[in-house]
């Protein structure tokens, strides 16, 4: 709770610092503040404290997810030092909006009442709608912002309607009470309740871009400023899945059969669309967008396996995925800068010649995304498959494996570009800080592949 409060204050502080017109102090302050948050979060570990009539519960689950999101945000902010040098206006606003979004994310990981979920989603989303439109004069950015906003609100409407229906039946917004209420039907839920739950699930599924509610994500990812995209692809996704798991895995377990089946269908669709469409992408950002959809599919697989270790697996998966994704975006931005705004994957050609070490680490990161040993990405997928297969979902697991192959295909398509020569090479400037982030993340991906953890969450 302290972390939550402190983060809120941090956002406001940054906002005020923006008035000083001194951009250089923003990132350090934000990072320092987040480090404090990190520390505060660590202190919450193991306490499992609930606040305000159990509106939020900071149990190990939420603390773990919060920590992972804070770390990722710090990495993103570290890169922001360089990224926002070019930008003159509204830098403080951008930082503070991200921090506010982080507050929303905290709520999503720790809610125990549907209203907190609703508010969490909104507090996360509204800053993002704004951030997506951060490049005010870019039509693409405008479009991304509006699409995100429009579709997001639309999904929220369904979400709210779903909450209303569930409330109508159960007369409560408390997740545990809803769970007890549902339990009395022994799996034979009345249609109204089913639809209500479905709408709630759809509302959350929309946030994590599960097909067929994924349409916003490629467009928004592409149109948004890349740093924001990185934030969306990592922190938002993590928060979304934390919320999803809290909703399904903690709140509604065991899932009513029709809902479970519907979710399986969504999982299958997500895997299919995410991977196959990513196959056809030549724009790196869109590629990552689709790949992020694909990863959602894998995480869904872990979640639906309904095993006691699902939460840990999801945490591991999202964190590992985030750690790999952020530096990829960073490299992309740098390469794009060097090649005059070229955002095709062919822009990576010659990277191996220009910056061999960056190329190597990029390969490691992509390997992790593709799930190839010895990277953490492999262990993440491995754990997912262990869950799904040992719970007996063989067919979907085989399907997921096939899709993983497709995934390897498009990630290594990029690798192939990285290691392809090009005739004339533009100079590529990588600051020490950025190189440091990339390398640390690359190493982290390998180290996490060796020192896998399992948290009792």
């Amino acid at each position: 709770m302290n972390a939550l409060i402190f983060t809120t204050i941090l956002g406001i502080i940054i906002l005020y610092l923006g008035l000083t017109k001194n951009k250089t102090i923003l990132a350090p302050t934000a990072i320092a503040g987040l480090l404090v948050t990190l520390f505060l979060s660590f202190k919450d570990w193991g306490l499992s404290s609930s606040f305000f009539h159990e509106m939020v519960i900071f149990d190990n689950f939420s603390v773990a997810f919060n920590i992972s999101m804070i770390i990722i945000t710090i990495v993103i902010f570290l890169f922001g030092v360089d990224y926002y040098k070019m930008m003159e206006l509204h830098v403080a606003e951008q930082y503070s909006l991200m921090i506010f979004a982080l507050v929303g994310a905290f709520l999503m990981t720790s809610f125990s009442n549907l209203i907190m979920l609703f508010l969490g989603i909104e507090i996360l989303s509204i800053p993002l709608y704004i951030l997506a439109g951060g490049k005010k004069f870019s039509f693409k950015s405008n479009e991304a912002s509006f699409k995100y906003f429009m579709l997001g609100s639309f999904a929220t409407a369904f979400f709210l309607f779903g909450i209303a229906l569930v409330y109508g039946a159960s007369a409560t917004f408390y997740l545990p009470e809803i769970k007890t209420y549902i339990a009395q039907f022994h799996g034979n839920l009345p249609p109204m309740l089913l639809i209500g739950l479905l709408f709630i699930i759809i509302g959350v599924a929309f946030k994590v871009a599960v097909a067929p509610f994924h349409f916003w994500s490629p467009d928004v990812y592409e149109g948004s400023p890349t740093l924001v995209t990185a934030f969306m692809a990592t922190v938002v996704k993590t928060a979304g899945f934390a919320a999803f798991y809290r909703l399904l895995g903690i709140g509604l377990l065991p899932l009513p059969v029709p809902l479970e089946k519907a979710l399986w269908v969504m999982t299958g669709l997500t895997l299919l669309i995410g991977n196959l469409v990513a196959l056809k992408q030549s724009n790196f950002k869109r590629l990552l967008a689709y790949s992020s959809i694909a990863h959602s599919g894998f995480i869904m697989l872990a979640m639906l396996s309904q095993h006691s270790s699902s939460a840990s697996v999801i945490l591991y998966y999202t964190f590992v995925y985030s750690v790999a994704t952020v530096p990829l975006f960073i490299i992309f931005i740098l390469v794009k800068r060097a090649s005059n705004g070229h955002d095709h994957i062919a822009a990576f050609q010659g990277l191996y010649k220009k910056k061999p070490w960056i190329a190597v680490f990029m390969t490691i990161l992509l390997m992790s995304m593709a799930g190839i040993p010895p990277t953490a990405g492999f262990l993440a997928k491995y754990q997912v498959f262990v869950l799904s297969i040992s719970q007996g979902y063989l067919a979907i697991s085989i399907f997921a494996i096939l899709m993983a192959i497709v995934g390897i295909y498009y990630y290594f398509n990029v690798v192939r570009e990285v290691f392809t020569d090009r005739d004339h090479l533009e100079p590529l400037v990588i600051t020490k800080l950025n190189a440091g982030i990339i390398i640390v993340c690359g190493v982290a991906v390998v180290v996490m592949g060796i020192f896998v953890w399992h948290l009792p969450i």
Partner: protein
Amino acid sequence: MNEITSAIQLIPLQHYIILSVTLFSIGMMGVLFRRNIIAILMCLELMFNSANLLLAAFSAYHSDPSGQVFVFFIMIVAAAEVAVGLSIVVMMKRNVESVDINLLNRLKW
């Protein structure tokens, strides 16, 4: 006054559900129907409000105030969303001189 306060007992809950569903469907239809972004935003408001109505009805039926409080929060959020949404619209209008939703198609595939 008493008549009004006990009105809820005369009207079956089902009616409110149907009314909300109707309103929700109309709003949804409007979102699909219109091209004007402003109009679509209005239709979205309709959808939110149908949820509000439903919550209020259930709240009354259960005699549980939390439903009404939820409605209050929905209103808050709706207001914030509208503010953001309209500011996005304003920004877009500046850039493209139009509020036609069909113009939003540069990002695709």
